[in-house]
């Protein structure tokens, strides 16, 4: 069982710069061919004025802080038994190449469900202009309890 005193614990932010070719590489890995990612001219003449990152690229920039929770020396998560149970992303503004995204993760809930520990983790990603672009909400399960 994980001590409930860690509810509310916030981790130091991670900074990630969105690379045009890196986000295209991610799109290719999942088979996304949209010109919104891949065609520079198309992107510049679109309503977004540039290419945008695939929404699922949030898995890369938004979830960076989760590793800090996984390897938190104070909590000592049993990483071998850890499962990513659920994930939700809320997209508030598009993310574009060159954006510098700062993501801050926080434990928002800890509960016991049967033999498992269930941890709710939220990460908020803000761009270089201070605009909140993405909120990620993850549920992690430590099977058999921590």
């Amino acid at each position: 069982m994980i001590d409930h005193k860690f509810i509310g614990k916030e981790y130091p932010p991670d900074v990630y710069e969105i690379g045009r070719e890196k986000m295209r590489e991610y799109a290719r890995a999942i088979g996304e061919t949209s010109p919104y990612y891949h065609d520079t001219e198309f992107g510049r003449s679109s309503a977004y004025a540039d290419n945008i990152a695939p929404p699922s690229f949030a898995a890369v920039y938004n979830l960076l802080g989760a590793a800090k929770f996984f390897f938190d020396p104070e909590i000592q998560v049993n990483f071998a038994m850890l499962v990513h149970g659920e994930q939700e992303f809320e997209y508030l503004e598009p993310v574009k190449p060159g954006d510098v995204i700062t993501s801050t993760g926080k434990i928002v809930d800890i509960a016991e469900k049967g033999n498992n520990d269930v941890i709710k983790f939220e990460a908020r990603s803000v761009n270089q202009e201070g605009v909140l672009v993405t909120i990620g909400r993850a549920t992690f399960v430590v099977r058999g309890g921590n």
Partner: protein
Amino acid sequence: MTDVKYDDVKVGDGIPALDVTLEQMMLWMYAGASLDFNPIHVDKEFGEKVGLGGTIAHGLSSMARLGRCINEWTGDPGALKRFGVRFASPARPGDTCTFWGRITGKDDASKRVTLEVGARNQDGVDILTRGVAVVELD
């Protein structure tokens, strides 16, 4: 600008399903793209040793393919405003996964459409459950 228009869709409509047959190379590509090189995704022998019977796909890659199914339907990936899933069971190389979606709600004021979305494998086993997506259509 979305290809599909708000006024042209109704509650109960399905969106075109996406079928993907997974190969180990796709898992390696996702590992490289996401920088998640956990050996359960990239090393078959390791996956066998820890009782998984081989490698399993990254859960987030299945989620991303479900996102692709939604984006290919709207035609504008910026239309996706909210997207969540439960990782129910792993997908494996050799599996043919079907990604699907169905409209469950419409909000005229915001032109936002809510969908129930999910993924299952060739045996009908659910890979992603409790999937919800919200898109804003033109």
